[in-house]
């Protein structure tokens, strides 16, 4: 599984940071930053799905590996 963050869409709701701080951080302006590169570890995949399912701006997407 891979997780993608569209920084242009992010408006700083900080829902991802609250749900999955292992995967997302926020900067001084509240903008989300992705902490993982490549595959999401198995134990964090549920949190990645939650973060994507709760972003009001649809800035987070998930792709499952082929």
């Amino acid at each position, binding site marked *: 599984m891979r997780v993608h963050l569209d920084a242009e869409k992010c408006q*700083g*709701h900080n829902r991802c940071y609250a749900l999955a701080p292992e995967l997302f951080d926020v900067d001084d*302006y509240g903008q989300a930053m992705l902490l993982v590169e490549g595959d999401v570890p198995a134990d964090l995949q549920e949190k990645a799905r939650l973060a994507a399912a709760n972003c009001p*701006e649809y800035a987070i997407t998930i792709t499952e590996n082929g």
Partner: protein
Amino acid sequence: MTDTLDENTTGPDIRVDPETGNKIITWDRNGETMEFIVGSKPEGTDVWQRVPYDAADYGPVADFATDFDHADPAYNPNAPEVWKAVREGGCPIAHSDRYGGMWVPLTHDTVHEIAYDTDHFSSRSVVPSVGRPGDRALPAPIGLAPPITSDPPFHAVARRLLLPAFAPKVIEPWESEIRLLCERLLDEMGEITPGETVIDAAVQYAQHIPVNVVRRMLGFPEQDEAMFREMVHEVLERINEEPGTRQTSNDFGAYVQEQIADHRENPRDDLTNFLMNTELDGNKLGDEVVEGMIILLLVAGVDTTWSAIGSSLWHLAQHPEDHQRLLDDPEVMTFALEEFLRAYAPVTMGRLVTEDVDFHGCPMKKDDWVLLAFPAANRDPLKFEDPDTFVIDREENRHAAFGLGIHRCVGSNLARLELKVAIEEFIKRFPRFELAGDTRWSVGMVRGPREIPVRILETA
């Protein structure tokens, strides 16, 4: 128009008009010069159009689909039923001739689309009322209280000044102070006899929390709390009064200027001095901009959060199963908090149509109001499963309680923290309580209970 000042932009260049004292800000963007005026009396600020509307001519609303009025006293107590009935009647966008013409999208998709379309829908005035700013009043894109009344591209500039003061990591340390404040309010309720004592969860608790927190952040005197609440009430609930007659607003502006002067003489580490020291392209903001931002923070931060806390406690008073779940499984608060915000979102915002536009078949005219009912979007069955049911552990919840797009509530992290702590402390102190009488709801754009009589059944 994008909400940034990019590489094609030069400026801003700021100069002061020696005659009026107004600041004149110019940008060059893609070869085009834009000029904006900021000042206590920019030319045309007083030019308000009195819209041809008198509430007395209309009376109570009979049909919300064709005669919508959020200031009808029957609206807030019954809003979820109103949205449902209008939508199920086949009307996704309600209309009203009131306020000189107003449209009210009630679906998530239409609310989302308008929130994103800042070209056709301006934030120059976000409170629909009988006074509508004329073309020269509240000059776009800045408006009276930036950034909430600003449009792109100025919006991003003003917003970036405020964001660092409300970033999650700046807000988190306030938790212990908010907890102490809640404990103090609960202590002040005095002797409680379980099964007998009735308290008011809005009057004695919810309404004091945000006003105290914002006041502390700004470094304003404690004794002025009641005046803040009155001022907020004035702006949001008395929208049918003649423009220019709102004495409280003028008094409040003078009061904020006094506080700014005091902070200049006695600087301290608080939000007021942070704003006063903030620079835009090497220039301090100027007292009138700082005043506008402070008034915005008070208006936007006080009865909104107070309403969310009140609605949540009102819900828990009637749903002991949700109350018990929070006590048994405190971790569920992560989801419960968002569900309170979804189901009881307090804030609806206004927009002004910038030019005639056909919006999904609705012939919107320049200067019509649009009421962005985020709370209605949150209960749209096309977006949320079983939207009128409070699901305490709802896992997919893209609610729009804090708005959508560039005007996302700047104080959302603070509001969320206040709501969480206020609920946690209340249910910890009172493990069981129930409604003990009639709830009185607010009137106008901010929806929440103003009186919630609650009988305490058990104390910690």
